């Protein structure tokens, strides 16, 4: 968006850019500079990836679980989608939360046989202010820090991750990658590399604050609890 001319001539955009070029002691970038920047943007390279972001297989799943627990997520590993409703119902019973689920309109989530668990009620859609529990999937899990990566889209309204007090994430172990850079590679491979979803969320544990006397408290404005249910089956890769 070009601004209307400001005080001393030219648009604000032009003035800021001119001030930058003045500070860099050149009126225009050289062809070589243009090319260097274009190349860096066209072919993103990884900087340093820590060794702990290079686990694979069972060790990777174990690392994801340990790191997610470290940031106060509750993690369960089950053998099939059929086992998920019972785990969720028991978790809600134990933490005295209403067994009323708002499911993300994502086929992977809605295909789970929720109705088999009579204690649970559920509806599908975006989050309302009074929804106590949301269930979503994630695009990937990241082993390095036990982080979940969620993408906005028709199957994942973003408010589900933030409005309810409990956020349940169901994730096949096959979707766990070692490091953030792996997730970026998957994302770029899945579509136009320059076009990313409106929102990409990295979520590491339930919300928290330490703003009162540095006392760490879980459950600030976002969820008070984060339950991750991992399904240990070979499944589709993250770029779905």
């Amino acid at each position, binding site marked *: 968006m070009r601004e209307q001319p400001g005080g001393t001539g030219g648009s*604000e955009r032009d003035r800021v850019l001119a001030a930058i070029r003045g500070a860099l002691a050149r009126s225009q970038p050289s062809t070589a500079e243009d090319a260097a920047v274009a190349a860096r943007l066209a072919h993103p390279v990884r900087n340093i990836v820590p060794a702990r972001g290079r686990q694979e297989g069972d060790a990777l799943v174990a690392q994801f679980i340990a790191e997610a627990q470290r940031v106060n997520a509750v993690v369960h590993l089950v053998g099939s989608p059929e086992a998920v409703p019972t785990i969720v119902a028991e978790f809600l019973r134990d933490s005295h939360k209403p067994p009323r689920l708002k499911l993300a309109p994502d086929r992977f989530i809605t295909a789970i046989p929720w109705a088999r668990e009579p204690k649970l009620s559920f509806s599908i859609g975006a989050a309302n202010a009074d929804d106590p529990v949301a269930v979503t999937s994630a695009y990937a899990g990241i082993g390095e820090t036990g982080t979940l990566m969620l993408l906005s889209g028709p199957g994942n309204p973003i408010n589900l991750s933030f409005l309810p007090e409990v956020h349940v994430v169901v994730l096949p172990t096959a979707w766990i990658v070692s490091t953030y850079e792996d997730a970026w590679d998957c994302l770029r491979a899945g579509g136009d590399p320059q076009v990313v979803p409106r*929102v990409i969320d990295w979520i590491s544990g339930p919300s928290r604050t330490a703003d009162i006397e540095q006392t760490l408290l879980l459950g600030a404005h976002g969820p008070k609890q984060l339950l991750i249910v991992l399904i240990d089956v070979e499944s589709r890769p993250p770029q779905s």
Partner: protein
Amino acid sequence: MRATAHLFPTNAEHALRDGKLQASLARFQQGFPVKRQAAIERLPEFDALRDAAAAMKDHVLAHLDLYLERFEERLTAAGGQVHWCTDAESARQTIVRICREAGARTIAKGKSMIGEELGLNERLEKEGFRPIETDLGEYIVQLREESPSHIIAPAIHLSKEQVAESFRKAHTEFAADRRLEDPRVMLDEARSVLRRAFLSADVGITGANILIAETGTMVLVTNEGNGDLTQNLPPVHIAIASIEKVVPTLEDATTLLRLLARSATGQDMSVYTTFITGPRRADELDGPRATHLILLDNGRTGMLGSEFREMLRCIRCGACINHCPVYGAVGGHAYGWVYSGPMGSVLIPNLIGVAQAGHLPNASTLCGRCEEVCPMRIPLPRMLRSLRERQFDQHLAPRPLRYGLAGWAMLATRPALYRLATRIAVGLARVLGRSKGRIRWLPLASGWTRARDLPAPAGRTFHDLWRAREKCSSGVTSGTRR
């Protein structure tokens, strides 16, 4: 916010006598540094990441125009609007205009230091809007009509009793005799009050920790989840960022994110790292209808062309503040503007002028811890020294300092006079400190001796000691000398 940086000596004096503040600062100094150290011990590549991050940011700053143009192009393609603003007033006017056009009444705000730099709340209130800070610390500070005292922990200077008192005053819808001793209870109360703010807000305003040129993405880092509710619930989202926040790619942002939380709070990663690229898309069920980014210069291009360019690498983690002995003694308010600690002492004079903030570069022991812990390897002590020189060159230094330095220069360039003067001074000091080996009062130096003693010198000048040592050792064979 109105700057009181020129009052640093008075501010600091008050801070040192404020018992409540001193208790809060004592608690604070035991927190972040320990957690940061533990996080770094779990990441052997931390120093290598610092080098990579600093080099990446230097490359960006040398090509800042190109990366900003690319960022603008991508965000615009995703349906966002970029508003370039040369200064604070232009940014305030732009934000007010957007809020008006949105028919806004209530405005939810995520914590933004640029918002503080703009004095945005004050302006929004003046224009008839109702801005509500949603970060818990920032909310507490807003209720008390104070300013944040730390860039990542705005209410670090307050005790829970002070917070309870503010909640009692502001939250009149709750029973007046309710118990409010427990931070958990206070948090739940704030959560319920602010939940209504999120749901009723017409506009959400946040900062942006990083801008990504490759994709036109704004990155928002929070622990509370307030930033996400602020950007995703109201129909209009405005993000505010200064021009130096841009990086080339998702990978480059990732490198900064590996450093940011570890350096700030000692977390490996903050709870929520949110990458936002434009408004709600056609097939989505939630999200804002419009996304605006205020791209603010406000003094940054001036720094870009100066010896302070490296300061523009700063990712606002607060590590330098958390490790600064001066901040630890006086807290953030003494610095008299939005920023504080070593980064504030460099930024504030650059942004509001040495004439206004000349005291701040002097509010440092130059102990070097800030540079040691800075994830972006910003040479803060060197910059503080440069600012002192600039202040001296512009004849802005206080008169006693100028005369003192002139006198010192006169002595130091005349060896005979220097030796005589130091011998007299040392003799006098020995008399003053005779009884306890400490000097409790010194003429012309009461500013020092009022708060602490000066150790009495050894009794002889360095020159005398050196000559004596040369004499003793001249008879010893060179092989045994060290």
